[in-house]
């Protein structure tokens, strides 16, 4: 390389010739160092604050704003924001703010749960492929490529269409839809994480500290769980953050197409779906729900950006 471009504006310049960094007077833990780097990404910091505030509002919103989500008031149909209804009302005169608080919980928990599914499957597949090599690795990577070339949204819609009635009968309306949506979204998004983990494994397994563990007689499982995985987790955290945003969009998409949550469980996408036919008379209804999705997704993406710079300072993009 003739010169080097820092991967991000906050990354520290690499010392010439890859020399060892100067010894610090005080030892700094990895978490502290990451936090120090994360803090310098101002937009990420602001986004993290927005996310925390929003989560608190969603958790304690019922206390501050104890209006029922299905309180029908035909005298106040499709009214704009006012003191009685901070975000206006919908076509049945239900309070949009109360519905948004309820729906936000659903949207966010779907996002986090689907991310957990994707990370769990992805780390498992990636770790197995990275440890086993050979034919197992090849088969798993073929599966990965196959899943990457699947038309995801049509298949998501197809699976939900085929299975929703049975599952809803089995475990109830709300839980059934939740489990189905989380499983399908997570089940279609593990591939990038699996590839990341596998690539990390390939480089880490040749490192001296793993060799040392092997020489000391550590079993393969111990090598993987104690030595390789903890070192491979940085990029996974970043990818997982972005996955939450993707899952929120995926859930909203399904609900927006009328195949997600039913109308009595108003997730943000569902509210938007109901609002889209009243765009001319009550634009506030669609703008608030859509804007909430946009705001959360953007904040999560910025936090992911900041985390990437903090945990993985050499990577570009």
């Amino acid at each position, binding site marked *: 390389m*003739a010169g080097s*471009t820092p991967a991000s504006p906050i990354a520290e310049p690499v010392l010439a010739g890859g020399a060892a960094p100067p010894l610090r007077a005080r030892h700094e833990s990895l978490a502290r160092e990451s936090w120090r780097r994360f803090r310098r990404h101002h937009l990420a910091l602001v986004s993290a604050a927005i996310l925390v505030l929003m989560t608190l509002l969603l958790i304690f919103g019922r206390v501050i704003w104890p209006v029922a989500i299905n309180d029908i008031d035909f005298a106040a149909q499709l009214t704009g924001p006012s003191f009685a209804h901070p975000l206006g009302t919908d076509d049945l005169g239900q309070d949009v703010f109360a519905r948004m608080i309820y729906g936000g919980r659903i949207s966010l928990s779907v996002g986090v749960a689907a991310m957990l599914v994707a990370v769990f499957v992805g780390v498992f597949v990636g770790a197995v492929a990275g440890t086993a090599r050979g034919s197992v690795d090849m088969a798993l990577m073929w599966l990965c490529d196959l899943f990457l*070339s699947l038309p995801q949204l*049509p298949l998501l819609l197809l699976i939900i269409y085929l299975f929703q009635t049975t599952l809803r009968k089995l475990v109830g309306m709300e839980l059934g839809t939740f489990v189905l949506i989380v499983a399908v979204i997570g089940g279609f998004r593990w591939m990038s994480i699996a590839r990341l983990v596998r690539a990390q494994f390939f480089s880490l397994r040749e490192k001296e500290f793993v060799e040392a563990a092997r020489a000391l007689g550590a079993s393969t499982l111990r090598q993987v769980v104690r030595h390789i995985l903890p070192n491979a987790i940085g990029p996974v955290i970043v990818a997982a953050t972005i996955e939450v945003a993707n899952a929120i969009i995926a859930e909203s998409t399904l609900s*927006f197409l009328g*195949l997600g949550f039913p109308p009595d469980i108003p997730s943000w996408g569902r509210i938007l779906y109901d609002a889209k036919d009243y765009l001319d008379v009550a634009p506030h209804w669609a703008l608030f729900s859509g804007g909430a999705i946009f705001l959360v997704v953007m904040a999560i993406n910025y936090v992911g950006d900041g985390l990437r710079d903090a945990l993985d300072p050499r990577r*570009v993009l």
Partner: protein
Amino acid sequence: MLSYLVRRLLLALPSLLGISVILFCILALAPGDPFSDLASDPSIPPSVAAALRAKFGLDDPVYLRYFHWLVAMLHGDWGFSFASRIDVSRLIMQRLPTTLFVIGASQILALAIAVPVGVYAGVRPYSFFDQVASSLALIGFSLPTFFTGLVLILVFSVNLHLLPMVYRTDMGGSGLPLAWAYIRQAIMPVMVLALFQGAPWTRFVRASVLDVVRLDHVTTARAKGLPERVVVMKHVVRNAMIPVVTLVALQMPVIFGGAIITEQIFRVPGIGSLLISAILANDTPVIMGVTFVFAILVILFNLIADVLYGWLDPRISYR
């Protein structure tokens, strides 16, 4: 070159088979069966129901059913739409051109935005332009298609009355006014999709240019005294495009997802809105057919990306 193409085509076949297996498994595992009504209908004797089941091969082992289904699909026998009362293949062929037009136009627009902006930002990292472009890209990246679509409708159709809200294919008139009407109604769907794709691609292009721009061969090109335009166009962009082509191909499934939503919002009569209406009308043959067409399209575009890749990067041998 030809043998490379043939080899890529042969490699695409297992993926297509894999997708067909997955599709069939989903269908086979799904609860409910087309003859459940017969079983509960007291006016039909059980023997008749059983004979019907045997005739349509519903009691065959799974692998036989898969084989029959695959053979029928390959013969172009995709079934009969319950809702529209015509063959699924004909229905899809009617709708496909609209979808391809909207997707194609938006891809061209997205690339026309993403490549220049990404290259310009990547050549001057952390400049003012780069910061603005990167922020806009991240915002565009976080905007879900359904929200952009609704906002565009709100601004341009509801408030300004500039553009039609609904996409139509049965417009009267002829000549230039008709062409203008077609373009006018396509503006918003194409814009939504182009924004949806342009934002992540700008990021890809920028990152990829950033990787290439400090390499030795670029320094050499500058040292030779080549004008900056030539250095960027010939030595940076061409090399930077190689990973971008792969990423664009990997994004194909996402693009089709975006197209489905966009078609649904603007009522574009393409295969995406066909899929949604088929799902809402329980029209299983159409759902299967459209899903399969999407799978074929994804694989086709991956194939095109592979060929482009070979053309962009001469280091890839055509062996």
